[in-house]
C-alpha cells in the first residue's frame, strides 16, 4: 500500500503530486501489478484533501494505462514502471553508484552531483535523437571499463 | 415531539426536582401547622369571632392567632411564586438558548421550532400550573379553619386574594409566559430575569390597584347618626354621606365625630351615612378579574413568542 504526502507549498497541483507519487512507487517497485491503491476515502481522511482530487489523480493514472478500476473492488495497478535497468542489481545502477562515489571522492557535494546530472541530461537531450543512444552507450562503456 | 419532549425534560429536570422538593417541604410544613391549628381551636366556638365583630373571646382569639404568622408566610411564598417561576423558569427557557447559541443546534435538527417550543413551554407550563395549584391549595387548606376570623387573615388580604385560588395559577402562567417572551426579546438570561421580575411585579401591582374599579361595592346605608353596621368579613371601600336626593358626598366634607359631626351633617343637609363594602362573595369576582387578565396576557405573550420565533431572528 502507498501512503500519500501532500505538500501544499510545493506549487505542484495536488492531483499531480498524487500521480507522481504513484509513479515513483511503481518505479521503485513499492507498488506492483495487482496491488490495490487506497480508496479515495482512505486517502482524503489521511491527507485532508478534496476527494475529487484523488479521483482525478486515479483517472489520470488510468488514462496512462497504469491502473484500472474494478467496480466494487477498488483501483488496481496493472503495469509496473520498474525497469530491470533500474533494479538494485543492474549494471547501469552499479555504474552510477561508482560514479557518485568517485564524484564524492573528488570533493563534489550532493548539490553539485545533482546539478551535474541535470546538465548531463540536458546535454544528452540536446543531441540529435538518432545519435543519442549509441553515443551514450559509447560513453558508458569506457567508463565501466575504467572502473573495472 | 417525543425528541423535543425528551430534551425539554433533560433541560428542566433540575428545576422540576427543585419544585417537587419545595412543594413536598411546604406540604409537610402546612400539614403539621394545620394539625396544630385544628388541635388548638378544638373545643372553641369560632362563630363568635367570624368577621370583625369585636366580641371574640380572648381565649378563642388566642387559640386561632398562633397560626396567622404561618399562613401569612405561606401566603408570601405564594405571592412570590409567579415572579420566581417567571425569572428562573421562563426567562432562561429561550433566553439561555439564545445567549449560548445552542438554539442554533436545536433548531437545525429535523424537528422544527414549533415542536421544540411546544414541548419546552408545555412542560414548563404544566409544572408551573402544578406547583402554583399545590401552593394555592395549601394556602386555602391551612387558612380555611380560621378564614376571615377576627384580626386574622381575611379573604381580601393579598396572601389569600392574590396567592390562592385560580388567579394564583393564572398569575404563574402569565409570569412564565412573560419570562419566556422577555428572554426571547432580550436574548440574555440575566437581564431577562430582571426585566421579568419588574414586569410581573408591575402587573400584579396594577391589578391590585385597579381591579376594584371594575366592581361596584355594596352600599350599606345607615340613616342619620345611627351606629354603623359592623363590617363583618366584608372589605371596606370607604364612606360617603347621603343627601335626601340620594346623591353621595365624600367623607372629607365632615371629618368629625359626636356633636361636631351632627352639626356638620346638618349644615350640609346630609341625612345618612353610606358604607361602601365588598362582601366576601366578591372574592370570586376579583379572582375572576385577575384570572381573566392574567390568562389573556399569558395568551398574548405566548402568541407574541410564537410569532417572533417563526419570524426567525435566531442567528
Amino acid at each position, binding site marked *: 500500500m502507498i501512503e500519500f504526502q*501532500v505538500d*501544499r507549498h510545493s506549487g505542484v497541483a*495536488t492531483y499531480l503530486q498524487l500521480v507522481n507519487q504513484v509513479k515513483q512507487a511503481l518505479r521503485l517497485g513499492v507498488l506492483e501489478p495487482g496491488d490495490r491503491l487506497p*480508496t*479515495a*476515502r*482512505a486517502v*482524503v*481522511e*489521511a*491527507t*485532508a*484533501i*478534496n*476527494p*475529487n*482530487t*484523488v479521483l482525478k489523480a486515479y483517472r489520470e493514472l488510468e488514462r496512462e494505462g497504469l491502473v484500472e478500476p474494478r467496480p466494487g473492488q477498488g483501483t488496481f495497478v496493472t503495469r509496473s514502471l520498474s525497469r530491470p535497468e533500474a533494479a538494485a542489481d543492474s549494471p547501469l545502477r552499479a555504474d552510477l553508484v561508482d560514479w557518485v562515489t568517485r564524484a564524492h571522492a573528488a570533493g563534489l557535494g550532493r548539490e553539485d552531483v545533482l546539478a551535474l546530472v541535470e546538465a548531463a541530461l540536458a546535454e544528452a537531450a540536446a543531441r540529435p535523437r538518432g545519435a543519442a543512444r549509441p553515443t551514450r552507450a559509447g560513453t558508458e562503456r569506457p567508463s565501466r571499463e575504467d572502473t573495472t | 415531539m*417525543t*425528541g*423535543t419532549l*425528551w*430534551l425539554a425534560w*433533560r*433541560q428542566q429536570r433540575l428545576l422540576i426536582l427543585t419544585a417537587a422538593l419545595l412543594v413536598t417541604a411546604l406540604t409537610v410544613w402546612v400539614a403539621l401547622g394545620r394539625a396544630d391549628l385544628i388541635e388548638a381551636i378544638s373545643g372553641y366556638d369560632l362563630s363568635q369571632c367570624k368577621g370583625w365583630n369585636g366580641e371574640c373571646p380572648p381565649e378563642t382569639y388566642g387559640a386561632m392567632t398562633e397560626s396567622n404568622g404561618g399562613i401569612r408566610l405561606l401566603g408570601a411564598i405564594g405571592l412570590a411564586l409567579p415572579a420566581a417561576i417567571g425569572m428562573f423558569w421562563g426567562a432562561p427557557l429561550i433566553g439561555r438558548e439564545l445567549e*449560548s*447559541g*445552542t*438554539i*442554533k*443546534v*436545536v*433548531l*437545525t*435538527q*429535523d*424537528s*422544527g*421550532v414549533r415542536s421544540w417550543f411546544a414541548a419546552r413551554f408545555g412542560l414548563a407550563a404544566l409544572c408551573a400550573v402544578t406547583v402554583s395549584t399545590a401552593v394555592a391549595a395549601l394556602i386555602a387548606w391551612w387558612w380555611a379553619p380560621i378564614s376571615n376570623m377576627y384580626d386574622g387573615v381575611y379573604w381580601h388580604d393579598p396572601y389569600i386574594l392574590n396567592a390562592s385560588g385560580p388567579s394564583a395559577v393564572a398569575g404563574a402562567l402569565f409570569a412564565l409566559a412573560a419570562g419566556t417572551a422577555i428572554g426571547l426579546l432580550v436574548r440574555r438570561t440575566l437581564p431577562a430575569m430582571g426585566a421579568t421580575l419588574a414586569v410581573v411585579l408591575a402587573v400584579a401591582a396594577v391589578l391590585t390597584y385597579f381591579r376594584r374599579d371594575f366592581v361596584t361595592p355594596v352600599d350599606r346605608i345607615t340613616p342619620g347618626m345611627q351606629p354603623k353596621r359592623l363590617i363583618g368579613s366584608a372589605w371596606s371601600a370607604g364612606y360617603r354621606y347621603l343627601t335626601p336626593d340620594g346623591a353621595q358626598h365624600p367623607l372629607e366634607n365632615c371629618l368629625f365625630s359626636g356633636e361636631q359631626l351632627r352639626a356638620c351633617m346638618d349644615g350640609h343637609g346630609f341625612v345618612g351615612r353610606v358604607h361602601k363594602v365588598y362582601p366576601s362573595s366578591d372574592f370570586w369576582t376579583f379572582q375572576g378579574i385577575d384570572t381573566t387578565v392574567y390568562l389573556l396576557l399569558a395568551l398574548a405573550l405566548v402568541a407574541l413568542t410564537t410569532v417572533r420565533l417563526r*419570524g*426567525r*431572528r*435566531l*442567528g
Partner: protein
Amino acid sequence: MNDPTAEPALRATAIGQRFRGNRALHDCDFELPAGRIAALVGPNGAGKSTLFHLMTGLLRPTTGEMRVFGAVPGTRAARTRTAFISQDKPLYPQFTVAEMLAVGRRLSPRHWDQAKAERIVGEGGISPKTRIGTLSGGKRTRVALALALGKQADLLLLDEPLADLDPLVRHEVTGLLMAEVADRGITVVISSHVLPELENVCDHVLLLQGGRIRLAGDTQDLREAYTRLTGRADPDTPDGLPPGADRAAVVHATTTGRHLSALLRNAPGTSLPSGVDEHWITRAPSLEEILLAHLRSAPRNAAHATEAAA
C-alpha cells in the same frame, strides 16, 4: 459528474439582509451545484455568518430568496437535509457527550447514524460519559462534528469550523470531513477567513466582501479565467501595463520600481488577457492570488459596508 437538471444545493437570489437599518448583505446572487465543496471566504465581518444563518433558516432574508435543494430554509424539507455547525460550536455544557449525541438522535431521527457519531467521538479519545463543559476546544469541535455528521444531511454548513484548532486537530477534522464527502457525495459549505487552509479542500469558492459576493464559481474555472502578469513595467504607460492591455480586465496591479505585478481577466475564450503578448511572464494564478487581488481591489465604500455587517 452532476446532473445539470438537478436542483442546486443552494440558490441565492438577490439576497439582502438588514439589521436595524444596517445592511449586512446586499444583492447576493449565487448558485452552488450539489456535490461541491465550497469555500466561503472573506474578511471578518463580511457577512459570512449572516449568510449561513440564511441558509439554515435561522434568519429570514429581508429581501430576495434562498433555496436549499429547492426548498425554503427552515422548512421541514430543507431542515432534514441540512446540518449546521455555527462558529461558536454551541453545545450544552452540562450534558454528557452521550446526551449531546442523543439530542441529534432524538431530534433528527430520520437518517441518524449513531454508530458513525459514536465512532467520530471515540476516535478523538472522548469518553461518552464526559461532560461537554470539561472538553477542550478541539474535542468540542469533534462532538459538534459528530452531531452534524451523524445527522446524515445532504448539505453540510460549517461556519469557521477550523478556527481555534491546532494544526494537528485541524488536519484530522478536515480529513474526517473529506472522508464523509468521499462516502456520501454531500455538498459542503465551509467558511474561513484564512483561504490557504481550504485551498486543497474546496472545488468551489464564494468570496464575500462588505456584504457582497465578489466572486463565485468553480476553482478550476476561476484559475483558468485569470492570468498573472509579471515583468518590467512599461515606461510609456502611467500604470506600467502593456499599452494594448484591456484596462477593464485588470483586477489589481502594483508596480514596485520597474517591476509590475498584475492580475488580469482573460479575454473570453482565450487563456490570455487581450492585449498581452508573450513578452510578459504570464502564468495561471493560484486561487489565493485571485482572491487576494479581488480583496485588494475593494471599492472605496467596501470598508464602510464591512463595518455595517460586523
